[in-house]
């Protein structure tokens, strides 16, 4: 079963994205923690696309597609903006340093990489696509 969602690039749609992911996962017997981990990973990638790749330009949009194969949940998030957005290679943030500096950001992609089994960003034409997958068997 495949499920798709298109949203405009505004952070006010993040709730809609989370509801979409929760609704898709509700057919499976997954723990609340597991569901929340997938919801969080998708929310973080979508927020990055909305805020950093598209500057919250509501004329731009993102497409989400969720599928299950034999053992894994797969999520594709396709950005239709023209800015190629490829996050820097994953680094482990020094949180004590973040606290000292009073930093607000910089943890989102760390979370995504720790929550999902596979995280890939690549280009398709002039656009950026993110694939996430997680073993949920």
């Amino acid at each position, binding site marked *: 079963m495949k499920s798709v969602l298109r949203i405009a690039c505004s*952070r006010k749609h*993040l709730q809609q994205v*989370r509801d979409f992911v929760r609704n898709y996962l509700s057919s499976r017997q997954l723990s609340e*923690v597991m569901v*929340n981990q997938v919801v969080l990973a998708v*929310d973080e990638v979508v*927020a990055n696309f909305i805020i950093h790749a598209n500057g919250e330009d509501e004329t731009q949009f993102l497409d989400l597609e969720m599928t299950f194969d034999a053992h894994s949940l797969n999520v594709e998030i396709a950005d239709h903006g023209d800015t190629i957005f490829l996050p820097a290679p994953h680094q482990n943030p020094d949180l004590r340093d973040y606290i000292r500096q*009073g*930093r607000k950001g910089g*943890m989102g992609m760390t979370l995504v990489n720790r929550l999902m089994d596979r995280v890939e960003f690549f280009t398709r034409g002039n656009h950026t696509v993110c694939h996430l997958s997680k073993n949920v068997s």
Partner: protein
Amino acid sequence: MKVTAQPSADTLTLLLDGELDASSAIVLDTELAKPDILNYRKVLIDCAKLSYISSAGLGVFISHLQRFQDANVKLVFFNMQEKVFNVFEILGLDALMTIVPSVTEAEAA
């Protein structure tokens, strides 16, 4: 996301209700940035109705923690749902912040 402030003598309790994400984090940030919050000895965060937190929500707490520590204001989380605590754990924030099970332990912390 709704934030309700309950002040008492030397303690401010903030009740969080809803989902804390990149859209709603500003509500909490505004509350924690108020200058008079540093007049309290302790700020307790009641997470019973906090059903979701993203890195933007965590970032709000991280960004104010040093300011609180410099002013000797203790920040304590309690009543946290398992799925929310799991997010703190994944980043290792459970070792850097005070998170206790109940209000009794929060008041004693």
